[in-house]
């Protein structure tokens, strides 16, 4: 910041604070204050419909929650979702980026085609795919197709074994195009000289991929892995619209659990404890992101 505008030194300069005040005020009241409140409520028994019964109960909520099978299931599902989704999404997005990283005529049409699901919102996509995944051939697009090629129908969202994976497939379809664009920008930033040098060495496609493309995109990869992971941890809309957390809680995620306990059953204290735990899980992951950002500086 050597170049920052020089200021009169002798008096306290209030102007910069006026510039940052509105934004900070909003962040303080709508992010930082809620965090403090969440921590505070998590030590209370507090149901919204029974404000007269509010009482301090210490770590009781935490005790109950870590022994609540449903919460553990929700954590398990959320991690499972992330671990299946992230590798597939990254590979698909990278593959697509490679496919569209050239200048053949009309390539931008393909880019938009891959990207288009991103423009429909997750809600729209979830509704549409509930129809696509309908378990009865003749009612669901995918099962009609399976029946056409002589395969047995798959229950998709209607079975605990396949519901979460079905949501993964849909989510990859929806957002791969977005990450493809990020990869594409990265690919276009790789210096062509490196490739030319490799060509002279007679390196094949795979060699170039391994020793030039992937290493140059290292940071992009790390970034996308972390972004997709965090996005996966927050999964809610798909479960809410498509399966309501079922069947057999197989799509119950942490955020869904918080929603159900806090806003459906109105147990604010209990839901706050779940939120705090969720926050710490994401914090661990975002610390990783921050490390990455710092290492880049």
């Amino acid at each position, binding site marked *: 910041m050597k170049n920052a*505008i020089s200021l009169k030194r002798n008096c306290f300069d209030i102007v910069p604070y006026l510039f940052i005040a509105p934004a*900070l005020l909003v962040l303080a009241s*709508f992010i930082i204050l809620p965090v403090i*409140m*969440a921590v505070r409520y998590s030590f209370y028994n507090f149901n919204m419909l029974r404000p007269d019964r509010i009482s301090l109960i210490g770590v009781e909520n935490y005790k109950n929650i870590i022994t609540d099978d449903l919460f553990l299931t929700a954590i398990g599902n959320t991690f499972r979702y992330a671990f299946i989704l992230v590798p597939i999404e990254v590979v698909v997005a990278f593959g697509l980026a490679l496919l569209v990283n050239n200048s053949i005529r009309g390539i931008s049409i393909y880019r938009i085609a891959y990207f288009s699901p991103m423009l429909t919102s997750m809600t*729209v996509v979830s*509704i549409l795919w509930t129809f696509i995944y309908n378990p009865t051939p003749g009612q669901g697009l995918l099962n009609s197709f399976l029946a056409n090629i002589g395969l047995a129908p798959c229950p998709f969202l209607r079975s605990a074994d396949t519901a979460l994976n079905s949501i993964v497939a849909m989510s990859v379809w929806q957002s791969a195009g977005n990450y493809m664009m990020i990869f594409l920008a990265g690919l276009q930033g790789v210096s062509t000289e490196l490739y030319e040098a490799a060509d002279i060495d007679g390196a094949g496609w795979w060699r170039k991929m391994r020793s030039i493309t992937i290493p140059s995109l290292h940071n992009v990869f790390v970034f996308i892995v972390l972004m997709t992971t965090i996005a996966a941890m927050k999964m809610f809309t798909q479960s809410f619209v498509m399966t309501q957390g079922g069947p057999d809680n197989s799509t119950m995620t942490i955020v869904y659990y918080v929603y159900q306990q806090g806003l459906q059953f109105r147990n604010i204290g209990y839901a706050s404890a779940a939120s705090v735990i969720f926050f710490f899980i994401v914090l661990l992951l*975002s610390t990783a992101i921050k490390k990455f950002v710092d290492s880049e500086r």
Partner: protein
Amino acid sequence: MIGRRKRQIIKTISLYLVNTLLGLLFLIPLLWMIASSFKPEQNIFRDMSSISAFIPTDFTLDNYRQAFERVPLLKYIANSIIYISITLMMSLTFNSLCAYALAKFKFRGKQFVLSLIIALMVFPFESIVVPLFIIITKMNLLDTRWALILPFTARCFSIFLFRQFFLDVPDELLEAAAIDGSNRLHSFFAVVLPISGPVFATVFILDFVMHWSDFIWPLIVLIEDSKRTVQIGIQAFFTDPPIYYGPIMAALTIVVIPMIVLFLIFQKYYVQGISTTGLKG
């Protein structure tokens, strides 16, 4: 050299082939949605196992008529646009001012603010919906339009993007303005704003797309039907029996249109935005 040329041609052809196949695969769900929205209910089921699933057989607008009859779709769309516009008008101002100070001014606590903002960048909103709901309730803002606006009038990620841009604004420009005797707020508006079109457009489109898809928050804080956003409106429509495919497909198709229009206008900035996300973020 001829061999090489040949290989180039084969490569190009196979690129087209693979891209066309994959592109169709990506578009199939959307094509089915649009085609189904234009055909009678029984045709949707009848056509499902053949290629006509993607063709509007017995073309009809009846699904659209029914969709509009059952839910005020245009009202929902207007609501969403209004909320987002007001949110963005405020957030673009707040965020850019904050980012400008962080990029160009020297002040005590700046480093702290900067790290705070970077730390909050990946903060999961979902982990505070419950207390935020209580805050909004206590502010008497439940079921008001402000409940959808106020909490989003500052966004760390946007501040970050703005700051990246402002860092590159040459100081000479600002110094010239300072010599002219204009104060810093004035020089921000007079000197910096006019050259910041691209970054504003980028933040605008990124935030717009994000807020358009907002789901959990409007689901929680809105009561009245007349205030519903698009996403909540169509979700309610989807769960309100009797559930017929056609009218729902029509509603989905309509809801997608504003985003496509916006994307076509701001395509360049949107792509730029998400690209810089990866490279600078």
